[in-house]
């Protein structure tokens, strides 16, 4: 069963006085309970635009998002119905969900469901803090009194307060250094495993996604170009872009080995190339790539959009 379904979603930004930007150009993605889906891709490829639609913060320009079988409609973050608070988001900047001028405990109370009444509400706050590895005394303090890693844990506690079933985490550890990164990542993975939540984990850190995601989707210029169970994707990337991303990750070895470089720059999504969007940078591009490749299934939870991996055309 899937919990979160993203279907043929398009997102178009219309900046004042400039050409519209098609940030997301038709994406399908699903997250099941207890599953971590990783979403990777270069800066500007549309990850955050997709995340905001998936969380019901903004409306897609086409396509739809379903949570627990029902369509998600962006009603404004505070006015969402009981179902939709089951879908929560964690941002790169913890202040996106924490008010610097209110005590941590009060902000957590806001999120605790109304059915929890009386002294049980305070007890729930203490429980939430404990879940994210913070002392109960943190409730009386203000967000700015914590380190970046601790503040991100508090933002996660806020996201957990309404007992969500799906968390969308957009670069949740990008601003943290390695050891706080590991603490926060372990916390998120633990929550998914223990509470059976689903998580869409967005990051441009491939190594991190490799480490924790069950399924990884690779996004390029508004489209998912390949998705597969994480291990398969790393051991046997099919799309040339997936291969390029993996080869660009610097590795620890006894002798220095420079990571492989990828030619060219990410094109402006306002002027995306026609045909395969990766073609201008693809070392394998051939004449057929002037046409956009369809996405084809290559196995369970696996699909790729590249002319190199198509069922052979039938000869009539």
């Amino acid at each position, binding site marked *: 069963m899937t919990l979160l379904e993203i279907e043929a979603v398009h997102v178009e930004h219309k900046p004042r006085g400039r050409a519209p930007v098609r940030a997301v150009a038709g994406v399908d993605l699903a997250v099941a309970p207890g599953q971590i889906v990783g979403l990777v891709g*270069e*800066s500007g490829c549309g990850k955050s635009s997709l995340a905001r639609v998936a969380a019901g913060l903004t409306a897609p320009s086409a396509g739809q998002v379903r949570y627990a079988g029902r369509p998600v409609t962006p009603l404004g973050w505070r006015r969402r119905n009981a179902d939709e608070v089951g879908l929560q988001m964690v941002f790169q900047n913890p202040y996106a969900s924490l008010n610097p001028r209110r005590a941590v405990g009060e902000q957590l109370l806001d999120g605790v469901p109304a059915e929890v009444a009386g002294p049980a509400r305070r007890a729930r706050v203490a429980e939430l803090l404990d879940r994210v590895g913070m002392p109960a005394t943190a409730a009386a303090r203000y967000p700015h009194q914590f*380190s970046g*890693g601790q503040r991100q844990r508090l933002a996660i506690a806020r996201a957990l307060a309404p007992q969500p079933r799906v968390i969308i985490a957009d670069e949740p550890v990008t601003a943290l*250094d*390695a*050891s*706080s*990164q*590991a*603490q926060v*990542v*372990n916390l998120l*993975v*633990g929550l998914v*495993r223990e509470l059976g939540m689903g998580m869409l984990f967005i990051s*441009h*850190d*491939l*190594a*991190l996604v*490799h*480490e*924790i*995601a*069950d399924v990884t989707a690779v996004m390029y210029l508004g489209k998912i170009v390949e998705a597969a169970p*994480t*291990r398969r994707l*790393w051991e046997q990337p099919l799309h040339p872009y997936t291969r*390029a*991303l993996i080869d*660009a*990750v*610097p*590795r*620890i*070895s*006894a*002798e*220095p*080995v*420079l*990571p*492989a*470089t*990828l030619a060219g*720059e*990410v094109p402006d999504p306002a002027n995306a190339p026609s045909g395969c969007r990766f073609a201008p940078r693809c070392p394998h591009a051939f004449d057929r790539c002037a046409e956009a490749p369809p996405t084809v299934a290559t196995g369970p939870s696996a699909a790729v959009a590249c002319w190199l991996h198509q069922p052979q055309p039938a000869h009539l």
Partner: protein
Amino acid sequence: MGALLDIDRLAVALPGPRGPLPILHDVSLTVGEGELVGIAGESGCGKSMTAQTVLGLLPPGAKTTGSARFDGRELLTLDRKGWQRVRGRGIAMVFQDPTAALHPMLTVGTQLTEHMRIHLGMNRKAAQRRAVDLLDQVRLPDPERALRAYPHQFSGGMRQRVAIAGALAAQPRLLIADEPTTALDVTVQAGILALLDRLRRDTGLAVAFITHDLGVLSALTARSYVFYAGRVVEAGPTGALLTGPRHPYTAALLGARPHGGQTGVALTPIPGSPPAPGELPPGCAFSTRCAHVRDECRTAVPPLHPAGPDRTSACVIRTELEVAA
């Protein structure tokens, strides 16, 4: 014959509300001619402060002891004029945020040529030619057009290339790169790493590369220093250091990073956080987080001692780690 950059028992203290706040302690570090040296450690451990010392960019009121020599000349006692001579032609710097080094309202060409006309006394034509060469050297497509463009017209990776071109304008012998790829995508990072390596090979440029990414350290540098709480805790050839650490802190940093491929296996975070300057525990500063801590660790700061070929470690159990490896 000394190294190009030779920092010897450097200590730096900044003015604090309750007297001088020690930031760097007893830091010794060298960078040879044409050498690529890495500096790593968690946020706040003193990486940037070390770079600022070498560039004469410490905050006002900073107190230094020890020495930092560049090409045999003491830096710590330089006057303004002296610094001007060293910066640019001797030592140049690139930062994590290239916009810090680039003026938003001036074209790339103006910024590059101005620099050369002032520092190298070039005429407009010669400076223009050299600017094209530089942009070509950092592999910016269409350098002539790039000269007429403004910084915001470039992507983050291209801006960092322009900043590197600017740093190279006066032909420095040492480039200090403070996390120049931290904000970039891996694909763009790969290009910058390749560029620095090529510059070292082709022009003999020495590079001190500051990063908290141990993968980058390994991919690029020949020799590294690991900092903790304002001190060098381990140093040696990068490959050996990262594949067989001789200090529990280096080992802990390695454990905290994704090691790849075992979905469901947790990362191993280092418990707690590094102590703030002025709040160091007695003895080894890592003792509050170290899994191997014992009584003797808390009595005195362990000095850097030999720990294998060309290697040093400031840990009382370094020989045990060596035997275990």
